[in-house]
């Protein structure tokens, strides 16, 4: 595996920081200017923290730190941007006046640490080992990462290329979100349930591929097929064993939603119980990005992932628009009692929605495991809010709204990293969700009359 290449594929750091600096030079807006402020004040508390052990707190996650010291000819370099990325986690910081930096990470695993060469002074570059290194924790929770800095010229990427790269990444992410969002939206449409356990259905798909493709070492295609079938089965089991009996009892929608929260919590920690808290890679997840399309380099995994998403989404559209049962599904989503009155078997439709929604979620989980990359017990939960955001943006209960909403969320998140720090990229998407609700509560494709 060649770390530099993997990073070239999806390292936001460099492009983002270049633009961030451009922006902060041009404007004095709060977010863009804040790194400069952090720079002035940070040394003191940072020093304090390293000396004192952190207070014992329950559920504290960030006990592990990468640290380093950036110097050039024994002079500390200040304001150099360092990014840590891996296992679905991203964070960045800048070196302080002594050239020191420190980033906390949730897991004691392998991360890619990138030094943004654009933030180095003129005529200075990373000379050996590359600007991106792969770092792994040893026995302690602190790992030092150092870069070799010397005189040299650095590579730059144009703004247009950066935008293109973000666009493709955003599209890829949006498409996989759409797979999960459509299932969530259809379940909401047909049963009224806001299913918080959808995240765990996403995780399930990835965990099954891990089990069959890695632990049992089956060929990856077979493992993925098994995972999707098992996901569909999980959907059937959940509907038949839990949701259908609850519907029969006439349990209200809000209690159902809270049951789904309980289920989500129980399933998520059951996954952690069985699979542990770490991150594991699926076969091929670190495939090199050696397919060059103009300025964009992609791996075959990226291309396969996008192709799969598009093919499946087209199939779902065909199912909903052209098949009898698909039309019945939309009719039930529109008005269940009326659909029942016109002879549609509502229970059967709901069962089909659960089975197909779970299969789609499982597939989304597999693709998410390749996109992050990595499989972990809470990977679905990490994107649950984004899936909800996509569904609400598009209009609750409409399948095509979910697709449009997902693409918007995916593109927005990736594009926004051009301007905002990458560890805050989800913030932008969630803010957009709230703003859209303010002006168009029915969502982009929803109808106004749906809102009670």
């Amino acid at each position, binding site marked *: 595996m060649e770390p530099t290449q993997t990073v070239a594929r999806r390292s936001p750091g460099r492009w983002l920081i270049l633009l961030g600096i451009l922006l902060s030079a041009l404007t004095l807006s709060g977010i863009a200017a*804040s790194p400069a402020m952090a720079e002035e004040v940070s040394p003191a508390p940072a020093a304090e923290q390293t000396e004192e052990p952190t207070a014992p707190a329950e559920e504290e996650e960030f006990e592990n730190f990468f640290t380093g010291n950036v110097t050039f000819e024994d002079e500390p370099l200040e304001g150099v941007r360092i990014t840590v990325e891996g296992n679905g986690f991203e964070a960045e910081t800048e070196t302080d006046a002594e050239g020191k930096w420190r*980033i906390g990470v949730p897991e004691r695993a392998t991360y890619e640490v990138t030094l943004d060469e654009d933030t180095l002074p003129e005529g200075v570059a990373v000379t050996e080992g590359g600007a991106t290194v792969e770092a792994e924790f040893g026995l302690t929770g602190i790992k030092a990462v150092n870069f070799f800095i010397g005189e040299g010229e650095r590579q730059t990427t144009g703004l247009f290329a950066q935008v293109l790269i973000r666009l493709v990444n955003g599209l890829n992410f949006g498409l996989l979100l759409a797979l999960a969002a459509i299932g969530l939206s259809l379940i909401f449409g047909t049963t009224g349930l806001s299913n918080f356990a959808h995240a765990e259905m996403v995780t399930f798909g990835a965990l099954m591929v891990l089990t069959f493709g890695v632990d049992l070492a089956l060929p990856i295609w077979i493992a993925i097929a098994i995972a999707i079938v098992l996901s569909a089965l999980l959907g059937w089991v959940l509907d038949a064993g839990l949701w259908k009996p609850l519907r029969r*009892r006439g349990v209200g929608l809000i209690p159902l939603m809270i049951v789904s929260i309980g289920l989500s919590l129980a399933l998520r920690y059951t996954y952690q119980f069985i699979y542990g808290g770490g991150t594991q890679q699926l076969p091929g997840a670190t495939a090199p990005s050696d397919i060059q399309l103009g300025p964009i380099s992609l791996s075959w995994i990226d291309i396969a992932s996008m192709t799969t998403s598009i093919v499946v989404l087209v199939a779902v559209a065909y199912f909903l628009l052209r098949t009898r049962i698909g039309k019945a599904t939309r009719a039930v989503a529109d008005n269940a009692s009326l659909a029942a009155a016109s002879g549609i078997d509502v229970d059967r439709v709901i069962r089909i929605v659960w089975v197909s929604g779970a299969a789609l979620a499982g597939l989304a989980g597999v693709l998410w495991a390749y996109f992050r990359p990595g499989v972990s017990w809470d990977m679905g939960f990490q994107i649950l809010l984004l899936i909800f955001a996509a569904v609400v943006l598009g209009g609750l209960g409409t399948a095509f709204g979910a697709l449009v909403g997902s693409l918007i969320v995916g593109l927005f998140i990736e594009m926004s990293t051009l301007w905002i720090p990458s560890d805050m990229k989800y913030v932008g998407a969630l803010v957009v969700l709230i703003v859209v*609700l303010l002006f168009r509560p029915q969502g982009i494709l929803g109808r106004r009359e749906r809102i009670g």
Partner: protein
Amino acid sequence: MIDWITIFSNAAQELISPTTAAYALAALGLAIHFGYTGLLNFGQAGFMALGAYGYAISTLSFGFPVWAAVLVAIGASVIFALILGIPTLRLRADYLAIVTIAAAEILRLIFTTNTFDAITGSATGLQGYKTGLAALNPIPPGTYGFGPFTYNAFDWWIRIVGWTLVVLFALLTWLIMRSPWGRVIKGIREDEDAVRALGKNVYSYKMQSLILGGVYGTFAGMIFIMPRAVVPANYQTSLTFFIYAILLLGGAATIFGPIVGSMIFWVLLSFFSGFVARAVEVGWFPFMTQVQAGQLRFILVGIAIMLIVIFRPQGIFGNKKELAFVK
């Protein structure tokens, strides 16, 4: 051999721990939102985070005295409630759920990011803000108490402050819920259109309820950080879910429910964790590691939430006739 005495005394300590008080207060705020008004607030963790960071940042970055820090925290959560409420309180109930959960996550991400490390301490969080409250402590230094309830002066002080706040807020809740204001609020839970048709400004009442319950959460957040540091990872969505579990356990539209629910929740959780951890230690559960034993309690909380909602939706203290759910 299992040390039962330690397990029991650890569990008993939870009965009056500041954490239990904080969860009780947060759940009481949620009772106003969810139990009495029918608002699906899934961002109580956000209100607690604002209490914690509002207090800690005003103390550390601006050197504010205790009263001013408390006011800053309250102000922050009032603004937060307004931001949440304005777009969503006119919409269907589940929109509020999604927006509040998203807003609480936004707050947590902002408190976690390295961008604002100088103020928020990013992932490491903040500490060293307790001197102000400690200075107000009238108890002379020393160790007091009996049996498992033996603490130093500061530990007693934060327990007294925490539980006094719980009692005061419970009293306040009792007063307002038996007043005409409470009647309007409960009417909104049942059917807001009917209340609107009777000439009540439903939107304004929902906003008042959201702010009030949020302020309870803010105080809970401030109590919560007294026995520990401010760490952003504590304010995850699961915190809100735990508070829901407590609320549902005690009874959503009750005043004692959230308080007793919190006590039962923490005593049982402590007992259970203690027992499983010791049992794993002595090899009773050979298939389980210590780490797994820690995760088991989350699984149990999840299952408990499901079972309560399905089989005893009114909670322990709820009136059987009054199934405290919005339709």
